[in-house]
């Protein structure tokens, strides 16, 4: 089967100065797969997520590369043609449901907007039925009443479900989930994750799940891409990544997670300044196994075992 989402050499960066923040990122996602994206803050994982909808925060521009969704090249389309892609092929849910819902519009108005844009043929009554069904599908009881509520009247878990419902309203095939459970409590987190899992299983929804939480990624993803300093350093099936990590950064990440009250501290942690990346390997300053080659050459992402890709000279 052909991969459903293909990202090839995607490079993004600052608008006013040529500083790449996401560098030559390439990956593929099959239909019905959940790809987890793991990395620390500022590593470019959120930017990558947004770029799958060809959206950029202010001050960030597209440099080069291409994204194919269902064989449609996203970055070769005209701005107007994008309206048929966003919401319909690919949708996004964000971290904080309170600030990403409109506080002065009811749930119904916000949901209706999507139907009006993507399903204009529906009558008012059909639209209402669809909305009720959709809210029921995301696990909201009394959908008729909830449709009339405003975001502030809903709890955190409910708001996140509404966000998911809005994202699903256009019947997308890919969902980009950018840390959708960081702002909510662990007991609610499980519910939202279960919902996404169910949608993935029942609808065959493809999900790109961005998070810095190892537990969440382990729970939901089939494969995981680890980002460091704007590039993928390791890409592997989830169990392989958690139990036999190869890249020193992934190893540091996994070892520093408290297990049974114990963990290993990575002493060389510092924030990578994306504008002052070292020549050669970006991880060389923090690496436990520094090598001479890393000082002047940049390693490639290579498949070292079946399905297991690593960007490190130790495995070349």
């Amino acid at each position, binding site marked *: 089967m052909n991969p459903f989402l293909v990202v090839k050499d995607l490079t993004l960066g600052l608008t006013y100065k040529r500083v790449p923040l996401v560098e030559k990122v390439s990956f593929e996602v099959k239909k019905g797969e959940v790809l987890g994206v793991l990395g620390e803050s500022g590593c470019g994982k959120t930017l990558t997520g947004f770029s799958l909808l060809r959206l950029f925060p202010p001050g960030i521009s597209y440099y080069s590369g291409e994204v194919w969704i269902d064989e449609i090249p996203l970055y070769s389309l005209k701005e107007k043609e994008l309206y048929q892609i966003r919401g319909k092929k690919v949708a996004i849910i964000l971290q904080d449901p309170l600030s990403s819902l409109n506080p002065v519009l009811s749930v119904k108005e916000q949901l209706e907007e999507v139907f009006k844009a993507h399903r204009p043929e529906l009558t008012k009554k059909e639209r209402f039925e669809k909305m009720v069904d959709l809210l029921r599908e995301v696990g909201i009881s009394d959908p008729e009443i909830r449709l009339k509520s405003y975001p502030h009247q809903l709890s955190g878990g409910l708001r996140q479900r509404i966000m998911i419902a809005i994202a699903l309203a256009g019947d997308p095939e890919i969902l980009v989930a950018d840390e959708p459970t960081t702002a909510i*409590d662990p007991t*609610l987190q499980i519910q939202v994750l*279960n919902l996404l899992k169910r949608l993935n299983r029942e609808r065959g929804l493809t999900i790109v799940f961005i998070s810095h939480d190892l537990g969440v990624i*382990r729970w939901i993803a089939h494969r995981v891409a680890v980002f460091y300093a704007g590039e993928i350093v390791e890409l592997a099936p989830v169990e392989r990544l958690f139990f036999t990590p190869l890249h020193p950064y992934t190893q*540091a990440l996994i070892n520093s997670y408290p297990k049974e009250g114990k*963990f290993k501290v990575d002493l060389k942690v510092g924030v990578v300044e994306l504008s002052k990346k070292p020549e050669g390997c970006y991880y060389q300053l923090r690496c436990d196994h520094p090598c001479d080659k890393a000082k002047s050459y940049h390693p490639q992402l290579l498949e070292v075992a079946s399905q297991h890709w690593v960007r490190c000279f130790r495995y070349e």
Partner: protein
Amino acid sequence: MNKPVLEVKNIWKTYHVKVLGGLKTYEVVALRGVSLKIEKGEVLGILGESGCGKSTLGKIALGLEIPDEGEVFWFGNSLKNLDRKTCKTLRPKVQAVLQDPYSSLNPRYKIKEVLLEPYLINVSPDKKEGLSKAQELLNQVGLDTSVLEKYPHELSGGQRQRIALARALMVNPELLVLDEPTSALDVTIQAQILELMKTLKERYQLSYLLISHSLPVVFYLADWIGVIYLGTLVELCHKSSFKRLNHHPYTELLIRSYLDPFAPSQIFSEIEIELNPPISDGCVFLDRCPVKTKDCYKTNPSLVKKTDLQYIACFNI
């Protein structure tokens, strides 16, 4: 025997929230009769979901909020009838480290000033001594003394949290209230700060009141683990026996909803958790409880000693 560093007795706190521009008010009960104490050198970790009152407890322990009912004791002194002089000597003994290292440091102060201000006011007006103390503490928290001349925006989140710790230690405290000290940090940096907090605790013989929603963080640092649900302390359990004892149904729920990245895959099937939060007259956890009986509808159970190492507020455990 020494007096406990912190003791709170039957604390109630209600907030009156104004809506519609003050036309209506409604009440939010943040804490319902919470009692606990921390002995010298102990770490009490408080777990709970957002809005359960755990941060209010932190503020009350710091003396920043006054409880509606109940009393707070610092080293055996009640905060209610504290005269000015004792207050001045006791206050520096209880310090805070807050969640967000970006907003808890004054952006217009150099790190030097951030660290010196509490020292000059509370310890001694000698600037030179203060500076050498600041340098010593910066070494302790693993920072170079060159940061003294920097502003907070020049530092990363982890570095700022180190500064917040150093600032709290400037006045020789005995109790630190740590309100979600690592939740704004990345995993690798969180590990460093956790280890640092453990080292500092031993070195300066500190006691911690650690407020967090993260099970592994509490598990790493705490001696006693307290669980708060809707303003009620539903369980207090010593870490040493946490793994083998039966727990309050809410604690069980928290444990089950923790996603362990290293669990063997067969456990990773499906966890179902029902949820309807609002509460009635009876037990606060009634609506979500899987083991409720008739008694639970009548009164809210109080915290009962089960063993030397565990206290639970539940009729059925």
